[in-house]
């Protein structure tokens, strides 16, 4: 087994997800099935192989630092679940 119930709970916390007791069982099972399949990659010797994170050989795309139009405050807030005085409202943090 690659991942235990309690590790699943830990990862769920990192991912900001919560699961019912039965869901934790189910998802641990699904993750194990997939992670066991991933062991296949261990057959390959990749020492000295450069990791690839992107398929295009692009460098930084620089541009002049010019002010361009951006979304008006009203439109930027239009989809907010809760808003007040031109700002997003969030639960108290401190």
């Amino acid at each position, binding site marked *: 087994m690659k991942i235990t119930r309690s*590790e699943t709970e830990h*990862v769920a916390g990192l*991912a900001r997800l919560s699961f019912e007791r039965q869901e934790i069982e189910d998802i641990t099972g699904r993750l194990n099935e997939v992670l066991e399949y991933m062991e296949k990659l261990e057959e390959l010797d990749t020492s000295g192989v450069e990791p690839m994170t992107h398929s*295009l050989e*692009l460098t930084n795309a620089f541009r002049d630092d010019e002010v361009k139009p951006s979304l008006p405050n009203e439109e930027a807030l239009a*989809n907010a*679940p809760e808003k007040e005085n031109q700002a997003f409202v969030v*639960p108290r943090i401190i």
Partner: protein
Amino acid sequence: MSNMIDFSIHQLRELLSRREISSVELTRQYLDRINEVDGRVGAYITVTPDHALDMAEAADRRIGRGEDIHPLTGIPVAVKDVLCTRGIRTTCASRMLENFVPPYSATVVSRLETQGAVMLGKVNMDEFAMGSSTENSAFHPTRNPWNLEYIPGGSSGGSAAAVAARLCAGSIGSDTGGSIRQPGSHCGVVGMKPTYGRVSRYGLVAFASSLDQVGPLARNVTDCAILLQAISGYDPADSTSAPREVPDYTGALRPGLNGMVVGLPREYFISGLDPEVEDAVRRGVSILESQGAEVVEISLPHTEYAVAAYYIVAPAEASSNLSRYDGVKYGLRAPEYNNLLEMYKKTRSMGFGPEVKTRIMLGTYSLSSGYYDAYYKKASQVRTLITEDFRDAFRKCDVIAAPTAPSPAFRLGEKSNDPLQLYLSDIFTIPVNLAGLPGMSVPVGMSSDGLPIGLQLMSGHFQEEKLLAAAYNIELEAGLEGQLPDL
């Protein structure tokens, strides 16, 4: 004219430009057909009749003036609900974005609008483009127009089904691991995933940013070339779009393939490949040969590792991209919570479906402390090996021909409880995304059950013209013209 929906884009262009039909009439016929048929197919999430008719009127005015007419001016199309449309809700087939109305449009959508295309609505998909059957939509599944008991493929299942069922003249999808090509194959339509960077991703809701690419689905290769032309090109708003000239894609469509070398990768013709699929693909290859191409056997030795590498890389990127759904700026927020952390957890647990949660968990795990080297780094190294396989292969051939999917479409519900089985059905489409190459599926035959079979073509970076040329020649000789699903 009563049968306008039967014409393809390049035929409609002529009828519109000669003013034998109007875009408004054409759009009305499509809206009527959607009303009549889509209750059974379920291709659309949101139909936008008022918007469509406004666009059609504007297109008719343009055509009347004879000014600023593009190949798509007045042509009704459908857009996958993963691309932002200003003022029109964009759900990603998720409860999380059920009521999200974007304040801006994706560059692809703006380009279509500027050229005068008519958007009929937003089409269904697997939630956040994660899936291969469109059964993961939070709203409803889409059914295969050729047999309503079967899945249309995914994740762009709505885009493919809408084209096959003549619920639009052409459509736009997105492809992260096969999500245009596989549903294209299952629904008997042409689908292209362009080279990474060919088409802007600005306004495409991100799944796996290093793999995602927007592309067209169409009834035939000519229409596919027209749609690709319309959406391709550099976009300053997407720093990963390529600053390169866009060639004339329809110019690549000519009978005859003299001088083209087609590679057949032995790793794609394996046990487990459905015999009817293999027969159809081999028939397609013999068409390429009879049209003048030379066929050689090639090897892509790391193919069998692609699925494992992909299901590490894509969920890792997804877990990061989907962290933005936190109930603050847009999207769902849980109604009750005691503090910030609880708000995050309740919101995300309510808003995401099971497959999206599984992939977020997988990605979070593989990126978490202590596992990064064993999973993400290893998978990124395998990605290099897969890319080098293609580089070697394209020293020997111009185009690679292979099956798009290992079998025709499966029944609704058949694989939905077995994630690994479903992941393995992407085996032939995933490598192209990992390497950032263009790939295309073109209809090549029908199974004995009456389900379509597609042939996949792959080529080097920015070599879409070679794919179109090969696909065009297959289409000329495949003898599938005029075969339509009975709806």
